């Protein structure tokens, strides 16, 4: 049983919906050291020897198992880069939860950069959940710059849920994916920035195999003076289908830049980009006010629903 303090428990709840030691395989990292680790018969977690990070191997045809690798940073001024490689065997079906929370009560910047590489085997299926969370009253920034690389074999599928709702001052998220035939990538990103926060999200997806597909959808809210950039590029190099969507609400003095990028390099590539940015529609607020909500409660309700 792990010994976790109140702050660690709170952070684990925020980033990984955990209320203590998770089921299945896990590694909990806190301030650059492992608080606990468990491999299972089918999921092997081995620390890297050259750099900080883990080599995780999931045996072929592993079914319905989960892996939790949450990261917590509570020391002000701590800066780390962590390299995790995930080798998902043929036909495996797994859930991977990899959140990161930074609590910074000091005046120095804290930063965690997680470099994740996924090698998804033939016909394997991965659901990946990554939540980012920041807290603490210090003037030091909370910075997260994740890089996720996904290499998908034939017939594999990956669903990525990326969530960053509050508290992270600066983030640059880069997601690169290469898909072989019949591989399917689904990304659902939800993002809310406030105060002077800045969030950049870059996707570069290469649909290399016949009948591969990608669906990258971002829903975001930019409040106060925050800035967001959504830069999604899909490259169709075969008969494939790709869709990117940026659906955003701006409030106060928030700014959002959506940069669509579609590259069709095959006559049978079908690629679509959609982007809609605007403030909350006045009629939505009025409708909720006719149900008895105040203007502020109506706004909160609309945003909570939008980012659900």
């Amino acid at each position, binding site marked *: 049983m792990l010994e976790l303090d109140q702050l660690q428990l709170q952070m684990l709840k925020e980033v990984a919906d955990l209320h203590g030691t998770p089921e299945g395989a896990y590694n909990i990292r806190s301030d650059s050291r492992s608080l606990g680790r468990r491999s299972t018969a089918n999921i092997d977690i081995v620390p890297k020897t050259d750099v900080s990070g883990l080599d995780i191997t999931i045996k072929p045809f592993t079914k319905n198992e989960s892996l939790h690798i949450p990261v917590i940073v509570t020391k002000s001024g701590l800066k780390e880069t962590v390299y995790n490689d995930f080798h998902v065997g043929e036909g495996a079906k797994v859930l991977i939860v990899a959140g990161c929370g930074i609590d910074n009560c000091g005046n120095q910047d804290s930063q965690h950069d997680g470099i994740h590489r996924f090698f998804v085997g033939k016909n394997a299926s991965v659901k990946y959940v990554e939540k980012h969370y920041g807290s603490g009253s210090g003037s030091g920034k909370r910075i997260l710059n994740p890089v996720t690389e996904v290499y998908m074999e034939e017939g594999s599928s990956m669903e990525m849920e990326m969530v960053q709702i509050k508290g992270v001052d600066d983030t640059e998220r880069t997601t690169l994916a290469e898909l072989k035939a019949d591989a399917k990538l689904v990304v659902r990103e939800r993002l809310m920035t406030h105060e002077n926060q800045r969030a950049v999200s870059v996707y570069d997806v290469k649909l290399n195999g016949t009948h591969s597909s990608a669906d990258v959808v971002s*829903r975001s809210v930019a409040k106060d003076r925050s800035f967001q950039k959504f830069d999604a590029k899909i490259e169709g190099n075969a008969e494939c289908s790709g869709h990117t969507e940026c659906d955003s609400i701006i409030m106060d003095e928030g700014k959002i830049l959506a940069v669509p990028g579609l590259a069709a390099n095959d006559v049978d590539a079908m690629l679509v980009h959609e982007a809609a940015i605007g403030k909350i*529609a006045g009629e*939505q607020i009025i409708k909720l006010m006719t149900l008895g909500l105040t203007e502020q409660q109506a706004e909160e309700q609309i945003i*909570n*629903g939008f980012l659900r």
Partner: protein
Amino acid sequence: MLEIKDLSFKVDTETGEKKILDKIDLAVPDNKLVVVTGPNGGGKSTLAKLIAGILTPTSGKILFDGQDITEKTVTERANSGIAFAFQQPVRFKGIQVIDLIRLATGKKLSAADACEYLSAVGLCARNYIDREVDASLSGGELKRIEIASVIARSGKLSIFDEPEAGIDLWSFQHLIKVFRKMRSNIKDSSILIISHQERILEIADEIIVLKDGNIAAHGPKDEILPTLMGTPAMISACRSGDEGGYQC
């Protein structure tokens, strides 16, 4: 009881000031279903929005149960018992039908309880309760959910702005049943419907005809409806349509 006194609403246009409503006086008593009808552009929807507080009058007063609510916000009027169904219901990304019903009742309803409101408007509740109130719903579905949200308010005054607009015939026929049921359960409350539809006029206790921003007629249904329909034979024809789906 709703009382409107000397109510005017004007807008500025390129050609000068335009009167949408001109010194209107009317009352909607408790236990009555009142239908406001009249030609397009006559000021009907404006009147409904002024009562709900969505628009602000140029002059005049609105009293609700004796209280002057002219300066009250939309929220304050909603909390004092005024419910409003939009002519074009609003869509929301991410907000589910059950959320809307819960907000309308102001209670943490169980799914089963929320379903009752949907069943009341003829929607198969389990197919809708988790649906988002977004573009995936048809106009008819959205309209019925809008009406369910107003029924869920259990308002002292329920206002429906052209409930028939944008819905299919089947939904419309069901809508008449919904209003009949509301009428039978009206105890100590009142219903105000803006409508062009003869079949809705038929279930009214009183009819108000609004034309060019003025009240052209106001009285019991049996007195006003014949004058609208022209001849008794026409009324008879329309009534027979009640059973057969014929619409005037």
